[in-house]
C-alpha cells in the first residue's frame, strides 16, 4: 500500500484549517446579525418609527459586507472535500454529503434568494412582506448552520451509519440517528448561539465608538441596548450548551475531553483540580507547571462528584487489543477484496468493530502493508500505533482554555454592559466604551479556538474511530499543494484587508440616508417571464 506523502497530508490539513477558520470568521456574524436585523425590523414594523428602519439599514450594510465573504469562502469549504480529501469523500460521502445537499436545498436556497429581496426589495414589498423576507434570511442562515453541523457531528460521532463490505465505505442506514445525533444537535446550538454573541459584540463595539464620539446617538444607544439584551441571553446559552456538549463528548469522545483538560492519568475524585494553567508535554505524556482549582474538574466533566475520569495513558493501553483486532479486520478485508472468499469475510466480520484502528496501524506496518504483519512483528506494530490514538494535547488543551477564558470574559462584559445600559449612564464610562470597541474581534477568536478544539481534538481521525486523517487525503503532489495554498493565502489576505477597510469605512461614515433601489415600480406580471416587449422605464 502506497501511503500518501505525509507532507501532502499535512499541507492538505493546513489548507483545510486555513480555509475553514477563515470561513468561520464571517459565518458567526451572519448567523447573529440576521436575527438582530429581523428583531430591529420587527420593532420598526410594530412602531412604524423611521429611526428603526435606519438602524436596520445601517446594520444591514455591515451585514452585507460580511455576508459576501461568508458566501465566497463557503464555496471553497464545500468543494475542498472533493479536491483534497478524495478517500474521505468516497468513504463518507453517503453520510456526509447528504446533510450538505439538504443544506443547499432547504437552507441556502432560502437564505440566498431572500437576501436579494432583503437588500433590493425595500420599495417593492409591503412592510410586512419585507419583514417576512428578513426573518426568512435569518431562518435560512441558521438552518444552514444546522445542516453543516449535522455533517460535522457525523464526523465526530458517525451515528446512523454502518460499514458496508461490498462498497468499502460507511453507508447511511438511519437518517434520524444522523440528524438527531446528540453531538450534532449540541454542537449546532452551541455554535449558532456563539454566533449571536459575536454579532452582539460587533454591534456593541461600533455603537460604543459612536457614543464615545457623540455621533448618531439615537442609533447607537438603541443598538447598544438591543445588542446587550441579545448578547447576555446568548452568552448564558453558550456556556450552558458548551457544558452540555462537553458532557456528550465525555461519553462519545473521551480522549478528546482528556486532551482538553490535560488528563494523562485516571483522576481521583473529588479533589481533582481543574487546571487554570499547565504545560502539557506530548512526548513525555505529562503536564508541567500545573496550577488548578481543586474540586472543580470532576463535577465539571462528569456532572457528578465521584466518577473517576479515565486518563489518556489508560486509553492508550486499552487501545492495544483494538489495534490488534483492527489489523486482523483490515488484513482480512484486503484479502477479501481480491479473493471474495467467505473465510476472509467471516474473519473480517469477527473484528469489524475495530476496523478504524487497523487503518491507523497501516502507517506503522512493514512496507505500510498489513499483509506483511505476522506473529513476530505484530507487537511492535501495535506498540508503535498506540500513541497515535491521542490528539495533540498541547494544542487542544490551550485552544480550549482560550475559548473558555474568553467565554467567561464575555459573561462579565455583558453584565457590565447591561448595568450601564439600564442605568442609562454609558456616556460616563469612556473606558468601558473603549473596551467595547477593542472587544469586537474577541468572540470570533473564541469561536475559532472552539473549532480548533473540535477538529484538532478529533485527530488522528477524520471520521471518529473509522477513518484516519492520513488515509483520507487526496493523492496530490507537493507542487499542487504549494500552488493552491499560496493562492489561498494571497487571496484571503487581500480579502481580509479589503473587508477590514470597508468595515472601518462604513463604521466611520455611519448611517446616511440613501436613495433606494433602482428598479422601477409598476410593471405587469408578464415581465417576470419577459413576455412584455415594451421598452422604456415603466
Amino acid at each position, binding site marked *: 500500500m502506497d501511503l500518501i506523502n505525509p507532507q501532502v497530508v499535512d499541507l492538505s490539513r493546513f489548507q483545510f484549517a486555513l480555509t475553514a477558520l477563515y470561513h468561520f470568521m464571517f459565518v458567526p456574524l451572519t448567523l447573529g446579525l440576521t436575527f438582530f436585523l429581523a428583531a430591529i425590523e420587527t420593532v420598526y414594523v410594530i412602531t412604524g418609527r423611521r429611526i428603526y428602519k435606519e438602524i436596520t439599514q445601517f446594520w444591514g450594510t455591515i451585514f452585507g459586507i460580511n455576508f459576501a*465573504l461568508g458566501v465566497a469562502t463557503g464555496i471553497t469549504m464545500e468543494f475542498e472535500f472533493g*479536491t483534497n480529501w478524495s478517500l474521505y469523500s*468516497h468513504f463518507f460521502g453517503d453520510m456526509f454529503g447528504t446533510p450538505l*445537499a439538504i443544506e443547499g*436545498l432547504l437552507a441556502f436556497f432560502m437564505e440566498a434568494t431572500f437576501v*436579494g429581496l432583503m437588500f*433590493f426589495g*425595500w420599495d417593492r414589498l409591503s412592510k410586512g412582506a419585507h419583514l417576512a423576507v428578513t426573518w426568512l434570511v435569518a431562518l435560512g442562515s441558521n438552518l444552514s448552520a444546522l445542516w453543516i453541523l449535522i455533517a460535522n457531528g457525523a464526523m465526530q460521532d458517525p451515528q446512523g451509519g454502518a460499514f458496508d463490505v461490498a462498497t468499502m465505505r460507511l453507508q447511511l442506514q438511519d437518517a434520524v440517528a444522523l440528524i438527531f445525533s446528540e453531538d450534532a444537535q449540541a454542537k449546532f446550538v452551541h455554535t449558532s448561539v456563539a454566533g449571536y454573541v459575536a454579532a452582539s459584540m460587533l454591534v456593541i463595539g461600533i455603537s460604543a465608538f459612536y457614543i464615545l464620539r457623540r455621533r448618531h446617538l439615537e442609533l447607537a444607544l438603541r443598538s447598544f441596548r438591543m445588542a446587550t439584551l441579545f448578547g447576555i441571553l446568548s452568552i448564558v446559552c453558550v456556556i450552558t450548551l458548551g457544558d452540555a456538549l462537553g458532557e456528550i463528548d465525555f461519553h462519545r469522545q473521551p480522549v478528546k475531553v482528556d486532551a482538553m483538560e490535560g488528563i494523562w492519568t485516571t483522576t481521583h475524585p473529588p479533589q481533582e483540580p481543574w487546571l487554570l494553567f499547565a504545560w502539557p508535554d506530548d512526548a513525555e505524556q505529562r503536564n508541567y507547571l500545573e496550577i488548578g482549582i481543586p474540586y472543580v474538574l470532576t463535577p465539571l466533566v462528569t456532572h457528578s462528584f465521584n466518577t473517576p475520569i479515565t486518563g489518556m495513558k489508560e486509553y492508550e493501553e486499552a487501545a492495544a487489543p483494538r489495534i490488534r483486532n483492527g489489523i486482523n479486520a483490515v488484513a482480512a478485508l484486503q484479502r477479501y477484496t481480491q479473493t471474495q472468499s467467505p473465510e476472509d469475510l467471516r474473519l473480517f466480520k469477527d473484528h469489524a468493530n475495530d476496523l478504524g484502528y487497523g487503518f491507523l496501524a497501516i502507517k506503522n506496518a512493514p512496507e505500510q502493508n498489513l499483509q506483511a504483519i505476522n506473529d513476530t512483528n505484530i507487537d511492535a506494530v501495535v506498540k508503535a500505533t498506540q500513541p497515535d490514538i491521542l490528539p495533540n494535547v498541547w494544542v487542544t488543551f490551550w485552544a480550549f482554555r482560550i475559548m473558555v477564558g474568553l467565554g467567561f470574559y464575555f459573561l462579565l462584559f455583558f453584565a457590565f454592559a447591561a448595568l450601564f445600559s439600564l442605568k442609562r449612564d454609558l456616556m460616563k464610562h469612556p473606558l468601558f466604551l473603549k473596551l467595547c470597541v477593542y472587544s469586537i474581534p474577541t468572540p470570533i477568536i473564541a469561536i475559532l479556538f472552539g473549532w480548533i478544539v473540535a477538529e484538532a481534538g478529533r485527530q488522528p481521525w477524520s471520521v471518529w474511530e473509522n477513518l484516519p486523517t492520513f488515509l483520507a487525503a487526496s493523492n496530490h503532489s507537493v507542487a499542487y499543494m504549494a500552488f493552491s495554498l499560496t493562492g489561498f493565502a494571497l487571496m484571503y489576505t487581500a480579502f481580509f484587508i479589503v473587508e477590514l477597510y470597508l468595515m472601518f469605512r462604513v463604521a466611520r461614515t455611519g448611517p446616511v440616508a440613501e436613495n433606494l433601489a433602482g428598479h422601477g415600480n409598476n410593471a405587469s406580471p408578464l415581465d417576470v417571464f419577459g413576455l412584455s416587449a415594451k421598452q422604456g422605464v415603466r
Partner: protein
Amino acid sequence: MTTYVILKLIWWVLLGVLMASIGLMVGMDMGVGILLNFIGRTGDERGTILRAIDPHWEGNQTWFILGGGAVFAAFPTLYGTSFSVFYVVMILLLFSMILRPLGFGYRDQVNSARWRTIWDWTLFISGFLPMFVFGAAFGNVMEGVGYHFTWTGQYVQDECFLSYLLNPFAILCGLISVALAIQGGAAILMVDTVDPIYARARKFGVPAGLIAAVLFVLGGFWVGHIKGFVATKVTPDMPANPLLHGQEAVMRMGALLEHFHANPILWAIPAVGILGMVLTSLFMMANKPGLGWWCGVLTWFGVIGTVGTAMFPFLMPSFTNPNQSLTLWNATGSEYGLIGMLIAAAITLPVVFAYTGWSFWVMRGKVQPVTGEDGSGNGSLSGGY
C-alpha cells in the same frame, strides 16, 4: 429492474437536470459578468447592468452549491475522484468563484472609478473562467481521464493532468459553454434594461447563440473522430464500488455516437439543444428577449442531455483502466441515501421554485439607468442599504 437500479437512473437524470440548471441560472449571471465591460462603457452603465442581476445572482448561484452537495451525496466516489483529478482547474475555478460575491457586494461600496473598474474586471474573470472550466470539464470527461483505484478506494492519478487538460476538444467545449453563457446573459439584460444597454446586449447575444450552435454541430462531427468508451459488460444493480469487477469497458473510435446510431430517436436531444440556441437568437432579434431566455431551457437541457446520452452509462471513464471507469452503476450512494435525498428534493424543490419565481416577480420590470457623478449609482452596497 430493482429499486436500486431505478434510483441510480433517477439520480443520473437529476445530475443532468442539476448541470443544466447550473448552466441556465448561474450561466446567465456569469454571461452578464463576461459582457459587463464590453456592453457597459461608463461606470454608470456597468452599474445599471449589475443592478439587473443584483437581486438574483446569489439565489441563482445556489444551483452551483446544490450541484456540489448533490454530487457529494449521490455520487460520492465521482465527487472525490473528479474534483481531485482536475485539481489545478478546480482550484482556479474556486479562486474565481470566491471573487464573485465580493465583486457584486463590494463594487459600489467605494466611490472611486478605479475601485469599481477593478471589481468589474473581477466579475469578468469570475464569469468567464468558471463557465469555460464548466464546459472544458465536460470535454475532458468525454475523452476520459487517467486514473485507477487502490484496494481502499483511494484514486491514483496515472499521469500529469496538466499535460492534456486544455486539448483542442476541451477548449471547444469550453467555448460552447462561454458562448451559451453570453447568450443567456444578453437575454436577461434585454429583459431588464433599456437602450443603449438593451441594443448592445442584443448585438452580442444574437451572434453568440448562433456561434454556439455552429460550434456544437462542429463538436458533433468531432466526437466521431475521437476515442470514446463502450461498456461491454455492466451489472446495473452492482454495489457502488468501482473495484468490484462488475463492468468491462473498451475504447473505440466514435463510441460517443454509438447510442445515437443505435436509436436514431436520440438525435432529437441534440436537435432540441440546437433549436434552443437558434430560437433564443431569433427571439432576441425579434425583441422578445423573455421568450428567448425561456428557450435557454431547451438549449441547456439539450446540450447536457446530449453529453449524458453520448456517455451513458459513463460518468468519468478512465483510459488507463477502463474497467474501473466511474459509471452510474458503480459510483452512486447507497440505496437508503438515494431514497432519502429523493424525498428531500421532492419536498423542497417545488418550494424553491415557488419562492424563486416570487422573487423574480417582486423585482420585475426594467432597471432604471443608474446615475451618479461617477457611476456609483447611489454609492452604497445595494438598493435599500
